[in-house]
């Protein structure tokens, strides 16, 4: 006798889910404060957008009292992926691009944990591109935060999958000729159930998005435009009101459950693909002669001695 489709889809006949291990009884504890969350001092360059994400993550942990044993912080490779060392929690620093499968493994085998995966644009959209699609498609219960700086910063300025057309870098000395990918579009197309974009210059919005992602059941994706002050300064000035840009949010009347509306809204040319705020308006919209677009007029700040000195805690 073959099962009907409704039988197959019903939770009762789905394969047994993994049960959470039994927790030892908890005794009353002092509230979780920032002191308990902070670990190593970040090794990022001063002014890096990633500091905002880290600070707001501390804030999130503190505000929602996410005890150390309730969360796991996972990352891939890159500047952003140093994240777990700066947070006092169980963490894992995995290989390049594969933070999401690793996080999926943790999430699937331990439903009692909330898994945060922190990665950069190279991690999520280049080497880990297929993992991103599949984690979104499978709707694995985890929060994926991509700190997108539109450049490979750790390796000192090479073109990343989100670098705009005409972006001059060490790998594209005449300006990038490849169309950048649109992470939000990709996430929505892959079936992600929570998609957000925010910017490191708007801390309130980051926290708001992180809280929403935390409360979301399933795969939640936050793209945080996080400026690389060293190798792509000014990349997101267009989303920063203090630099003459505009931080546009999704209109209140947008129905978040309406995928068609999200798709249509995304396609509207006046509002560059974005679910919650807008991507930098300095991004050239059409391919043009390399080197002539505003985005490529990046002032070189030169090498600053000592910026990348290793300051690892060995304690």
């Amino acid at each position, binding site marked *: 006798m073959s099962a009907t489709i409704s039988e197959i889809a019903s939770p009762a006949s789905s394969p047994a889910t*993994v049960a959470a*291990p*039994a*927790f*030892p009884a908890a005794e009353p504890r002092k509230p979780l404060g920032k002191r*308990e969350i902070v*670990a*190593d001092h970040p090794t990022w360059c001063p002014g890096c957008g990633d500091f905002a994400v880290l600070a707001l993550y501390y804030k999130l942990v503190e505000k929602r009292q996410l*005890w*150390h*044993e*309730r969360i*796991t912080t*996972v990352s891939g490779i890159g500047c952003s992926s140093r994240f*777990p*060392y700066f947070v*006092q*929690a*169980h*963490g*894992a*620093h*995995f*290989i390049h691009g*594969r933070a999401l*499968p*690793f*996080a*999926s*493994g*943790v*999430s*699937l*085998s*331990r439903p*009692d*944990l909330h898994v945060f995966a922190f990665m950069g644009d190279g991690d999520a959209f280049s080497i880990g591109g297929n993992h991103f699609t599949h984690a979104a498609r499978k709707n694995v219960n985890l929060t994926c935060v991509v700190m997108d700086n539109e450049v490979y910063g750790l390796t000192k300025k090479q073109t990343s999958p989100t670098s705009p057309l005409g972006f001059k870098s060490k790998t594209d000395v005449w300006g990038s000729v490849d169309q950048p990918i649109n992470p939000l579009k990709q996430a929505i197309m892959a079936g992600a159930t929570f998609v957000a974009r925010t910017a490191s210059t708007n801390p309130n919005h980051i926290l708001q998005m992180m809280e929403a992602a935390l409360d979301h059941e399933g795969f939640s994706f936050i793209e945080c435009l996080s400026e690389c002050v060293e190798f792509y300064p000014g990349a997101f000035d267009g989303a920063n009101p203090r630099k003459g840009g505009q931080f546009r949010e999704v209109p209140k009347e947008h129905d978040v459950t309406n995928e068609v509306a999200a798709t249509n809204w995304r396609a509207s040319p006046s509002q560059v693909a974005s679910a919650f705020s807008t991507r930098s308006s300095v991004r050239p919209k059409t391919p043009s002669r390399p080197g002539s677009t505003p985005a490529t007029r990046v002032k070189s700040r030169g090498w600053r001695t000592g910026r990348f000195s*290793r300051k*690892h*805690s*060995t*304690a």
Partner: protein
Amino acid sequence: MALGASYAGRLAVTGSSGPGISLKTEALGWGVMAEVPLVVVDVQRGGPSTGLPTNVEQSDLNIACFGGHGDSPRVVLAPANVEDCFYTAIEAVNLARKYSVPVIILTDQAIATRIEAFEEPALSKVCQSIEPSLTPVASHKPYDLAAPNGMTTHLPPGTRILDGRYPVITGLEHDEFGHPTGSPKLHLAMSAKRRHKLQVLADELPVPRVYGPPEGRVLLVGWGSTQGPIHEAVDQCRAAGESVSALHLKHLFPLPNGLEEIFDGFTHIRVVEMNDEGVYGFGQLAGILRARYCNPKILSLNKADGLTFKVREIILRVRETVQDGMNKF
């Protein structure tokens, strides 16, 4: 994903064939560096590349033992038949958990597609509960250098650590708390820790038993699925009055201690394996054994046509290559 599940406290078993193993070698190296237990089943097929997807070969031994960049010692086991697969899997899980290291099970297409009857295992005896324990601990060093024999185990996430210092499990060279370091001293100490665990394991491995008399003219050394034809070849040769014995290795990396003594008891040693004789004229296990024991008696008997050994082939080729006769004088 498997490493993620293992890290989370539920040891994962994953399976693939040669190309999949090649692809995931980077992650396997992470498992060695981060000291995360994992069991990988490699069902070998003809290679390299897409190779002979439905044919058999024993040519993944080198990648299983040495694959990956850097010094990354791991454990490699090879079951000899279907029943052995069952018990090897249990052993692999136990070793992975005890030594916190990835364990590779090298089977091949010849075993994977074989049907054999064996006695029903006493499931109530062999089954064990390996639920992660989340009992709070006072403090924890994930890579404690003071641990006996360098053997440390990770706490699954979700465990409360009372001193508030939580570990990061990492592929970067790390200090005892898992935080990255470039210190030459720590790299030496941590490399030694990872190596030493397997030296301890080698001491604990049982010495394999010789099939046939423990001394004689010819010793056939095999591993994995070739056990059947090799043992039958030994039986037939001995029935014909020839002095032939066999040694079947299950623990390929690290090798158990005590093989030197066994090799000393024979005039000729032939390593029977289904792979190419290589640039230097030795198959993969023969190469490893020669490097390990510096014994010039160790020679290869290879077959790499994607088919399993026939008993006749083994006997004929041993008779051909052992010029001074196989009878014991």
